[in-house]
């Protein structure tokens, strides 16, 4: 602690150079923070996926349909607590680029399967009471100005109305807070299955999939197989995944994102290590006389090494923290620009470790030199 003024003086010995070094490190950590936030955000998505909810879809994929009759079979399967039908009803809304996600469900079923929905019993009741009713999220309400009582024309991607038009008008009966951690129904417009089934021109009596809540989350693998076995060799074979598996699969579909991220981060740090290390070696060389004087005064080799390393650590940590803070601010902007919505996971712990490693490796050579410095040679400037 008492050595702090000495360390601080060392850090700012050449203010311009220190500032430039800080800029280099900060910029590297801005990139690191965003990349790390993204990948740890993806991991968190997977971890948060509810373990006791499975999704049953047609073997042909989520766009293919299953008959509604399967629901009874699912409900009667041992180990299944509840099953909910879902029909994908999302589509463009107002602007061609804007997408409003929606699912047609049965209120009681949905409620039984997803207990993380922040929907009040009164709101559920309202949805049941109004056939053409819909529950929207607070985010959507803010974005589009929905109010309870509004009539909203939904234009789903895959359905046309029996009446010849494209619109399915629904009445907003409630606004609920969206839950980004809810992987089941988290942030959707919810409407009644009965209403859309009777209005849609095609594929009546079919659903896009079933959400199945099982009794024992540890049995998700067993239950998935058991469910699929019931529909094997039928015209509508199913494939059941746990939500966690689905999250992992969607990430896998992104391709080698993890690898790409690691490569970029690696390249950035390689360059940084080089440049920061070089600056530190240079700076070390310039301070040969100063270090020799310290040794003259009685500062031991270990102490001098310690001072050198602490200087490196102070610079790297301070710049890393600044860079990570900037990355936190930039992250939402980046996500918006690339149309990817992954909430940022923690980047600070990993970032601090990397900063520490950077300091130790970059400062290793100057520290070693400082330890080996002979006083006589040092005072002469050699």
């Amino acid at each position, binding site marked *: 602690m008492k050595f702090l003024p000495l360390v601080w003086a060392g850090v700012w010995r050449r203010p311009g150079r220190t500032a*430039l070094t800080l*800029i280099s490190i900060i910029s590297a950590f801005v990139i690191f923070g965003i990349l790390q936030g993204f990948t740890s955000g993806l991991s968190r998505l997977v971890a948060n996926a509810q373990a006791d909810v499975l999704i049953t879809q047609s073997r042909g994929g989520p766009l293919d349909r299953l008959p509604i009759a399967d629901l009874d079979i699912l409900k009667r399967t041992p180990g299944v607590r509840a099953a909910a039908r879902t029909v994908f009803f999302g589509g463009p809304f107002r602007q061609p680029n804007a997408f409003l996600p929606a699912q047609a469900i049965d209120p009681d079923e949905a409620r039984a399967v997803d207990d993380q929905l922040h929907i009040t019993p009164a709101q559920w009741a309202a949805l049941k009471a109004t056939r053409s009713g819909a529950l929207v999220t607070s985010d959507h309400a803010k974005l589009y100005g929905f109010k309870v009582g509004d009539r909203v024309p939904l234009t789903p*991607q895959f359905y*046309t109305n029996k009446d010849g038009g494209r619109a399915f008008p629904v009445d907003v009966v409630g606004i609920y807070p969206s839950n980004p951690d809810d992987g089941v129904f988290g942030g959707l417009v919810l409407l009644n299955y009965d209403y859309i089934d009777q209005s849609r021109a095609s594929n009546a009596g079919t659903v896009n999939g079933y959400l199945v809540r099982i009794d024992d989350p540890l049995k998700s693998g067993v239950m998935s197989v058991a469910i699929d076995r019931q529909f094997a060799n039928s015209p509508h074979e199913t494939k059941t995944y746990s939500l966690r598996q689905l999250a992992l699969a969607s990430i896998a579909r992104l391709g080698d994102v993890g690898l790409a991220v690691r490569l970029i981060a690696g390249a950035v740090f390689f360059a940084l290590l080089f440049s920061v290390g070089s600056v530190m070696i*240079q700076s070390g060389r310039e301070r040969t006389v100063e270090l020799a004087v310290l040794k003259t005064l009685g500062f031991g080799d270990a102490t001098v090494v310690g001072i050198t390393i602490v200087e490196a650590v102070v610079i790297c940590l301070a710049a890393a923290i600044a860079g990570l803070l900037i990355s936190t601010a930039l992250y939402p902007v980046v996500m918006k620009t690339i149309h990817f919505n992954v909430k940022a996971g923690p980047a600070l712990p990993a970032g601090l470790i990397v900063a520490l490693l950077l300091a130790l490796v970059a400062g290793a050579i100057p520290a070693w030199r400082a330890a080996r410095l002979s006083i006589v040679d040092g005072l002469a400037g050699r």
Partner: protein
Amino acid sequence: MHPLRQILVATALALRTLPQRVGPSTVTVVGVATVVAVMVCILAIGQGVRRFVDVNDQEDRAVLLPAGGASEFAGAFTPGDVAVLQSAPGVKRTADGRRMIQPLAALGVEVIRRKDGAPQNEMLRGTGEIGNLMNKSTLHIVQGRMFRAGMHELVAGKTAHDLFRGLDVGDKIDIRGAPWTVVGVYADEGGIDENSLAGDVETIKATFGSTTYQSIGVQLASPSDYRRFRDWVMSNPQLNAQVKTLGQYYRDQMKQLRVLFDFVGFFVGGVMAVGAAAGAITTLYAAVDARLREIATLRAIGFGGGSVVASIIVEALALAIPGALIGVGIAALGFNGHGIDTAGLAFQASVTPGLGLTGVSVALAIGLIGGLFPAIRAARLPIAEALRAS
């Protein structure tokens, strides 16, 4: 001395002492090379997307999509709609007089990745004889034969065949309880369909249990017929469709991906460039410091400040340019043509001369900024003080 000659002499002196500063100079070169390499590689993915689209860009191919919905899988066109389309103008005819209109439908099929056994959904695209005719110039059967109408037969794209198991000629895939036989493998010159499967649209529709087609592909007599054709379709109330050229459709689909990689490339490249510039400034300041006495002597002799500035900037560029070339070289040799498999699409990264130029420009910018401040310092140095410096 003539100013240009001054610059040359000053620069020659500067470069001659460069070997003494190998360490810091190497750092700048490495820094620049890294920035350029990373940036060009990322942008190359975006270029790969563009090339992908361009390869598939045909102005005389049109596609009917459901009005209001953008996806080619979302339509519900009836056979009646196809019949109506027979009256549309501008449609090319086959040698035997049939109009080149192909209704399409696709089914998701589960396939297993060779690399890690993970299941993935791939498209089994339903098309027909006319559709195959439309693709005749680019689509070739490389193994086996084409599927026959009305049969549970399918052909696999070469990329799909390489990526997934069980797609060799003779293999059977279970789709909706019925076995389908793989009868051939096709290549589409890197086109968009090479990573999917294809089969007879009518059979697929029946398997789907569907009575409608998802979209309709049309071969126009010539690109200039597009306008006529489009106007006719869009003003036809029975059809309820929107029309795009195939190129436009793919461009729209790929836009998100393209924007993603362009943005990431410039963002990461930009931030890294800032870091590299900071590093370059540091290195060049050190270079100036090492040559203080020499610079002061030059100026004492009578070399103008401008020649000194120029010599330092040239030194900076002498570091930045090799860095750029190394970076572009790494990107081109190591990454050009690298297969990218993402979001269900497979294409190749493309390092174009344009990207090479971008990389070099970034490097030059870094070099210029890196050299500017030290150069100004060298030019403004009080000569007497510098002559005393050791």
